[in-house]
């Protein structure tokens, strides 16, 4: 067994790996209670991301793969992780991760790289139902990536710029390609980027809000996934849905967290 800071490791560990379309996330948990290490790499399925993110958490924690009682993969690339003992859909993992962070949560809005989903969970954190976006990438992280590129701003700056908007512009197209054309037209008219960005956030909120209404919103509502870190989108969603929506620092790790929790549960079952 490995050692951490010279102390023999007596606790048991589980690992959750969330291989998304645009990012890889990994979490190691001790006995299903405490996060020991976490890492995120901005490339996802089919890249070096999964290997690198696993290597990073092992390095940070000083643990080895053999120290893991169970490794679970989730996300778009969940089937491709050879070291995983099992896999689960990101839907169940997000449900479990969110419930762990905030047991009062009943609705989870997750906006990832290429999909958006709204999940309803019961009082035990069990996934009851969900709705996901259709084939179109409108309203997903990819939509924001494309828009940021056209606007020549960093993805991380979208939130700050949006907050400075004085005169929001309406982006009516839901299609990423058409919305891109609208943004280009606005730029050609010398519209402030901050006002365009606010309109983009509104477009995402409108699209995802429609999904949320389909399944019905029950408080508390939590937002997860990379896009949750952009407060501009979260606030636009709050206005759209007229509900308080909170998020946490672990928003982007939520799927990996759920996978690590399920992994721990599986290893306990095995013991029994």
């Amino acid at each position, binding site marked *: 067994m490995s050692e951490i800071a010279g102390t023999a490791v007596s606790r048991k560990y589980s690992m959750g790996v969330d291989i998304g379309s645009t990012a890889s996330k990994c979490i190691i948990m001790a006995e299903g209670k405490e996060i020991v290490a976490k890492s995120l790499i901005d490339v996802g399925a089919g890249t070096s991301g999964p290997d690198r993110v696993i290597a990073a958490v092992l390095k940070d924690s000083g643990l080895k793969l053999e120290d893991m009682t169970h490794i679970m993969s989730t996300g778009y690339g969940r089937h491709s992780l050879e070291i995983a003992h099992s896999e*689960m*859909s990101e839907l169940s993992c997000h449900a479990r991760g969110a419930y762990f962070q905030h047991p009062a949560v009943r609705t989870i809005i997750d906006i990832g790289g290429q999909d958006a989903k709204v999940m309803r969970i019961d009082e035990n954190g*069990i996934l009851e139902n969900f709705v996901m976006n259709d084939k179109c990438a409108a309203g997903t992280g990819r939509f924001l990536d494309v828009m940021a590129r056209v606007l020549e701003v960093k993805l991380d700056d979208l939130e700050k710029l949006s907050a400075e908007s004085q005169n929001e512009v309406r982006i009516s197209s839901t299609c990423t390609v058409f919305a891109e054309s609208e943004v280009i037209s606005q730029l050609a008219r010398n519209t402030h980027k901050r006002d365009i960005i606010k309109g983009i956030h509104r477009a995402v909120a409108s699209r995802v809000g429609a999904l949320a209404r389909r399944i019905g919103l029950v408080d508390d509502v939590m937002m997860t996934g990379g896009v949750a870190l952009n407060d501009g989108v979260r606030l636009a969603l709050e206005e759209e849905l007229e509900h308080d929506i909170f998020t946490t620092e672990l928003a982007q790790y939520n799927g990996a967290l759920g996978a690590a929790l399920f992994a721990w549960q599986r290893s306990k079952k095995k013991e029994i």
Partner: protein
Amino acid sequence: MTELKNNAQSNAAPPAETEKPAKVWLREVVEKVYQDAWDAKERGEPVGWSASKFPAEIAETLGLRVCYPENQAAAIAAKHGGQRMCEYAEALGYDNDICGYARISLAYAAGAGGDERPMPQPDFVLCCNNICNCMTKWYENLARMHDIPLIMIDIPYNNTDEVNEENITYIKAQFDDAIKQLEEISGRKFDEDKFAEVCANANRTAQAWLKACSYCQYKPSPLSGFDLFNHMADVVTARCRKESAEAFEALAEEYERNVAEGKSTWRYDENHRIMFEGIPCWPELQKLFKPLKEKGINTTAVVYAPAFGFVYNNMEEMIRAYCKAPNSVCLETGVEWREGICRENKVDGVLVHYNRSCKPWSGYMPEMERRFRKNLGVGVVGFDGDQADPRNFSEAQYNTRVQGLFEIMEAQKKGE
């Protein structure tokens, strides 16, 4: 009004070919429909193309051979010719938003080929918009393309559960007009006795079809619900034929034997049972099936059972029956059909196909989903796809949704 005799009540003698697997027999019946059309064409007789829920009894009574573009399109799509045909139609100017069946059919009518399911070009077309509003423009285009007669039966959308009397009168007049036009095309007189016989065959087929579908109620089911998608071809193309009724009766007998012997055409675990809502993605049938079989999820309910299993005793009841197609009934009736089969067939989840080709059908699915969740208390999950155009389906997205549904059903099962 003419009273129709019902052959199904007469305890017909068992078919002579009982040893042949019913699925083979059913396939042969469909093949014969197409062969008969080719033979008629060869003899110089007019051959028609018909919408799937045009009253087939009329053409059959007059001895006219007809083919079914919807069935042809499904067959071409299942054999991976859908994209080629759709792109051909798009090059002719038909938008890719139009139904995939329509695009395949229009491409075939325009000479694109279609060796996957060839059929003779039409001399007349029979259109009934009960199955979809798209049919009207599709068939108008076919008629214009070939400069041939279009016999149209317009079925008003039913905003209520009941079919009102004005609609019956309106549709009856159209039936009479269709008979008159088809008498001219066939050169034959409409024979009431023959009509009664044809209707009796149609009723017998419908009853046998319903009976076969009803075996999904057994737990475990003696059949894979996906079988019903394949057998649908007979209900669409050969409802009025005695052979079709006999083949379905043989199918029901096979299922009965399966129940007695504890066998099933579903060769996997039956961990869960679902309703598959909508037309399958024919080009991706294997991909649809794969995660279901891997997780032991059998489809035990499909809406085609009530949608095509209609029985009537006279002309008025027949008209009422033709008013009840998936896209001509109101939301309440649609929900009632589906929730009925979900309960009867004991499903613990619903998988909804948001079919890009079928806007009317998919359009009211979000509300249906909401009602299924509320009324049935089961997991309901939707995925995007298309009945004929493979470009509208993503396997990875589908797999994630099926896995999510599986995990919901597992959690609910453990919670019981």
